């Protein structure tokens, strides 16, 4: 099914922010906004749900910490007991200070890498994926807001968008992905 989408282009992030607020106040549906750099507060203005990636990050960190502890315990205490710093206690707890840097690093390593992988998966990004960017200018100095024009009065919408300070308005027919 093909649907109609309006692409409104802006050349300033403040104007874009205000436009997003106006469009939302008019109850039009914003499909996506493309920006050349992260615009602070845009997610809130668009009414996007807060990210839950911090929660996954915490869980990955806990996994990393656990892996580090089990790994160090196996390598340094069980499999080949080491005399650490001239203190042959052969106990994980008593040698813990020596393991703390590894515990810390593994926590960070797991949290960071798994968080990035999670982000890619959630955003449906993978190597050699074709860019979904509708207009290459959004990678340079333009901001693009895609508004669903399927059910509304397109003329009225165009008027509203023009008033928000859009530098260019295009109506695009697109194959719907979903």
């Amino acid at each position: 099914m093909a649907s109609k989408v309006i692409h409104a282009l802006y050349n300033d992030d403040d104007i874009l922010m205000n436009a997003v607020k106006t469009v939302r106040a008019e109850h039009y549906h914003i499909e996506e906004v493309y920006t050349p750099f992260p615009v602070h507060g845009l997610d809130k203005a668009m009414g996007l749900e807060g990210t839950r990636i911090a929660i996954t990050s915490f869980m990955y960190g806990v996994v990393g910490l656990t892996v580090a502890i089990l790994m160090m315990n196996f390598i340094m205490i069980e499999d080949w007991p080491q005399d650490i710093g001239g203190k042959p206690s052969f106990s994980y707890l008593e040698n813990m200070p020596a393991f703390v840097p590894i515990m810390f690093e593994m926590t960070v390593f797991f949290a960071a890498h798994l968080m990035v992988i999670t982000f890619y998966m959630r955003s449906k990004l993978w190597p050699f994926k074709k860019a979904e960017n509708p207009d290459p200018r959004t990678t340079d100095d333009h901001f693009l807001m895609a508004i669903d024009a399927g059910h509304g009065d397109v003329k009225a919408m165009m008027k509203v968008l023009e008033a928000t300070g859009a530098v260019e308005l295009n109506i695009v027919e697109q194959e719907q992905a979903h």
Partner: protein
Amino acid sequence: MYTLPNKLKVFALVFMVLGAVGIVAGFLSAPKTTEDVAAMMADAHHGDGHGDAEAHHGDGHGEVEATHHSGESHHGTESHAASEDHHGEEMTHEHAQADPHQEHLEHVMHQLQNRPWSALYIASFFFFMIALGALAFYAIQYAAQAGWSPILFRVMEGITGYLPVASVLVFVLLLASAFHFNHIFHWMDPELVNPESAHYDKIIAGKSGYLNVPFFLIRALFFLLGWNAYRWLSRKYSLADDTAEDQSFFKKNFKLSAGFLVFFIVTESIMSWDWIMSFDPHWFSTLFGWYVFAGMMVCAITVIALVTIYLKSQGYMEEVNDSHIHDLAKFMFGFSIFWTYLWFSQFMLIWYADIPEEVTYFVTRIEQYKLPFFGMIAMNFVFPLLLLMNSDYKRVNWFVVMAGIVILAGHYLDVFNMVMPATVGESWTIGVPELGALMFFFGLFIYVVFTTLTKAPLVPKNNPFIKESKHFHY
């Protein structure tokens, strides 16, 4: 303009009076003679439940003695065995061995006499470092031309208003040590650097070119004057800026702050060696200055957050929003972790190398101060880490207040752990002298800080970043 509520005034005065009573009681209950000590110990040994301090000093006093009086540097491990021996001896032949027993009694007496002074010094330094940390944080905001914080400048200035008062009190305490009213700074004993004396200490004598009383006092005076001069000038310029036509006062403050920060980081480091590290004159750690700095900053930022939240709850500073509190809480979180990082760096290197003269510092603390030592790590690291990790919690005032109170208590314990093991050793408790001193300085701090807040409008007017700060949102 903010006016000091009567309730708060009474609150502060009550704390000061109760605290003063505690301080005086602490001094009066300190033993005057070895007979007093013997009586106190006998009480404790017979299970009168006279407090932990008395109950403990039988065991392990040898170790403290070693830390204090021995000229050699190997006491860390050796003294262990020694202390066990002493303990046994004492229990069995208490009367037969009059001499070592008498010596021990004298030693405990000195520790107990040091206790009220140490308690006073710790509490005094703790609130002093909050004011000094707030001053450094304030200078950083100016030097960085931060846009979010100018709305909090008057709160910071209010807290640094305690600096002149604290400086006088700390200096008086240092003078009291210098003129031998107390012996909390062991190295000030002239016997130690006298080659003729039986107590001659080669290591301390070797350091006496730097660590001598006149130079120590000159340094202290120089640092205090420098910090107070910055505080006085920056406050003057900040107030003048309110009515100024142009930004000249802001520019002056910007330059002054940048200069102060250079002065501060050098002098703060030396101050921490002088006023804290020299309690253990044989021991040294090269990152000690940073360590004290981290604790100082986390306390100062916590107090800025608490005062701001309090003022806001009283209906002042309407423009302070969640985002300002969020930023302060981020600093609390960040500096708590920074503090832990430095604490651990210091601990791990010394633990790993296990060099007797270094490791004795931690051996004493882990053996005799187990609860405050490990409790403090939980309070200063684990608690803020888990409580303030979530982004949303940093915006909830009561979460920030709760974390703040634990952080402040934890850092009081941190200072306690830095000072007490060297001055009172085994004979520590947190009792009347400690709580009294803490209450007194808390009351004084509240009184001075909130009085300073009444002296100027709570929000600066002409600061070039004030508009950005009022609209700050994250």
